[in-house]
């Protein structure tokens, strides 16, 4: 297993002896996710998955100190090659980041490559600053219209 760390991106790879499709399915099946998407300090996880592009997921990791909620939206579901979803958690400061998972078949094994990147503020959908600008523009447009008439 290797890990490459750049300035705002984390890349982690692992070769797993299993077909790409089987590993890919483990990412979208809620029962499977609840099994493995659970850190050692969590007693159990509750998972909901809407496995389609634009669909949301929620993974709640239950810890002795309380539940930790992770949410996101699937951006790309290209079985069994590529999966991309936004990722938001209290640890990420409730800041949307992007996780891309690639599945490269290699003989009887599959190399799984996870790239987790922080999105620049401007690229965040629904970001407050973006909405403020949009609302200002809308207000200007409406005002200009009402002055014109």
């Amino acid at each position, binding site marked *: 297993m290797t890990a490459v760390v750049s300035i705002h991106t984390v890349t982690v790879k692992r070769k797993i002896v299993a077909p790409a499709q089987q590993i890919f399915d483990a990412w979208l099946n809620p029962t499977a996710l609840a099994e493995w998407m659970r*850190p050692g300090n969590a007693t159990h996880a509750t998972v909901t998955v809407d496995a389609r592009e634009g669909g949301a997921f929620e993974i709640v990791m239950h810890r002795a100190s309380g539940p930790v909620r992770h949410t996101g939206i699937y951006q790309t579901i290209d079985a069994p090659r590529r999966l991309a979803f936004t990722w938001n958690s209290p640890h*990420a400061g409730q800041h949307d980041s992007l996780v891309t998972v690639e599945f490269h078949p290699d003989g009887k094994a599959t190399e799984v490559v996870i790239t987790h990147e922080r999105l620049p503020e401007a690229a965040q959908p629904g970001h407050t600053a973006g909405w403020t600008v949009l609302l200002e523009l809308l207000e200007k447009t409406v005002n200009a219209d009402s002055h014109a008439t």
Partner: protein
Amino acid sequence: MVEYKSPSTRLDAAFSAMADPTRRAILARLALADACVTEIAGDFPVSLNAVSKHIKMLERAELVRRTVQGRDHILSLNAGPMAEASEWIEYYRQFWEDRLASLEAFVTTQRNSAKKGNRT
């Protein structure tokens, strides 16, 4: 007035400031030693104006501090926000490495029980 910045806002600013190669090079230069603005500008094949803009972004992200000594503006590195950013990276590197190990264990168990199932 001191503007309040939440840790998350500060982290956002640090990450966007560090996303640019020239700004990273400026940070690397300041990691060696403090320098004044003209010294920094001399190190890079861009205009003084462009370098000033990059420095302002680094100051806003609180990655660089400026002290005025007479006519000289001395820039120094402030490693605090960078440490926060690398903490984020380290957290997720560990998180995904652990998750991949656990994914492998899960898939292997699944395959083993499928094989047993086939035999019976």
